[in-house]
């Protein structure tokens, strides 16, 4: 399983795609980071007098993490699309299927490998707010909660992408459907906010990937939010396993 994960990560870094994604997302986020700092410097004088005013972490680090989530929503489908769809297109899936591996090992291996890539991305992103601690006091608990949120969010993106990639042999289709699903789960609570009926709004906002992330960004670590992400991850992984198994049967 770990062999598979390592191989997946290694092959990802052999393609220019991984490097380009790392470089460009870092570039864009660094630019946003600087604008947030700029903004903070501008208003610093005004808010310094107010007791209990938001600090560096609230005004720079959290908006950055929120931006990063949006950016990753766009990037994740590009990374996950190739996972199974490309193996299918290159007809290299039999290599794994005829090896003494069970389906869950194949799926988890691929999942962990891809998540490993996102984890690298995440570490690079977290370096930016951490660099502020050189000149300022950071609220580490809040930062940790935000990073936990981003990690869980990415883990869910990966699981959803992996499942949709297992449905097709065209990586582009996998990318499109993944993007559409992620985006839909992102905005689904807009209907919730409209509060058409009380019942549907709670359901829709509960389903939203964004809603649970926002509470983590505020520093509220609720079991229900974490449970939501874990449920999404395990549900999509199980569906992927089932999908690969049923392919053998049909």
């Amino acid at each position: 399983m770990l062999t598979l994960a390592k191989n997946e990560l290694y092959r990802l870094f052999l393609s220019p795609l991984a490097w380009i994604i790392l470089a460009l997302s870092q570039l864009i986020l660094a630019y946003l980071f600087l604008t947030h700092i700029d903004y903070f410097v501008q208003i610093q004088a005004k808010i310094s007098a107010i007791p209990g005013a938001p600090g560096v972490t609230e005004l720079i680090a959290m908006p950055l993490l929120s931006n990063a989530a949006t950016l990753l929503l766009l990037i994740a489908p590009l990374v996950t699309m190739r996972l199974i769809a490309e193996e299918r297109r290159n007809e290299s899936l039999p290599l794994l299927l005829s090896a003494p591996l069970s389906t869950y090992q194949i799926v988890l291996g691929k999942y962990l490998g891809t998540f490993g890539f996102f984890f690298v991305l995440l570490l690079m992103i977290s370096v930016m707010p951490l660099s502020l601690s050189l000149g300022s006091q950071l609220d580490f608990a809040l930062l940790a909660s935000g990073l936990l949120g981003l990690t869980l969010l990415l883990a869910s993106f990966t699981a959803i992408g992996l499942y949709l990639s297992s449905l097709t042999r065209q990586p582009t289709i996998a990318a499109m459907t993944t993007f559409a699903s992620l985006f839909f789960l992102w905005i689904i609570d807009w209907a919730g906010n409209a509060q058409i009926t009380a019942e549907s709004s709670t359901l829709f906002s509960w389903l939203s990937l964004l809603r649970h992330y926002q509470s983590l960004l505020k520093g509220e670590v609720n079991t229900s939010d974490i449970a939501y992400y874990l449920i999404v991850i395990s549900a999509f992984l199980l569906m992927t396993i089932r999908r690969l198994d049923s392919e053998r049967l049909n």
Partner: protein
Amino acid sequence: MSSVLLSAKELSRYYGQQHAVQNVSFEIKKGEVLGFLGPNGAGKSTTMKMLSGNLSPNHGEIIINGYDLLTEPKQAKSHIGYLPEQPPLYKELTVKEFLLFCAKINQIPSSSINKSVDTAIDRCGLSQVHRRLIGNLSKGYQQRVGIAQAIIHTPAVVILDEPTSGLDPIQIREIRHLIRDIATEHSVILSTHILPEVEMLCDRVQIINQGQLILSDTIEGFSQQMQTSSLLLGLTIPPAINVLQNITGVLRVDPVTNTLFNIHYTPDNNPTNEIVAQAATQHWQLSQLTPQQHSLEDIFMKIIRDETQHEEQGV
């Protein structure tokens, strides 16, 4: 202990309404090379996929080295090596990296991984290219990497699905050499639609057509089936057809052109000598005398014809 390494019983597989494979049973013993012969779309690849665990049969069971593929897939799969029609390769890896990965997923203990990778590279003649990217290799070398991948964990049975398709004649010869070499240590199941390949490589032949096994024989028996009982005879000044017809052993004469005849005879009564003698004494000016070989197509047609005749007689 009997040395049956793989046995398949009553395998059936449907795609929707279509029967891809129907009631196929066979066994392979240690050190045997079994050839699966059949026209395209006969169910060869489907059978291979089922044997390698890529497809589960709708009916029947597969026992590999004592393990049931359906109930103990992990143990069973560790005893097979599989090369599908399209070699499953990661083209962005070098040959060595790829084989290391294959060794790991086949659960070779880490102490002997390097050794088994080197052995596989050696056996498949890849030592010249093991640092190169698989994507940059020729089709023949890619096929070798595919074979190396299938034998890396020294499985009991190696399953090769049309290993020589799409290669040039020199590459085909090299791959055949390699297969014969592999057969000294492993049992091999080989599918192909090329007749001479079977004659060259296999100990036993099975012919599959429309999902059904229609012939299972040793290579000797198969060669006998291939022996035809007809001659192509060319005479510059031919006699009347009934003169040829009256030669002992001749069953029937089909004129192909004015000077070329197809002579059918009973297998136990070969008239070649007689024809040559008469041609010499009666100045027919013999220009050609060739025993005719059945092509694979003829054999298929013959076997299929026999089958349908049997069925009709049964009715």
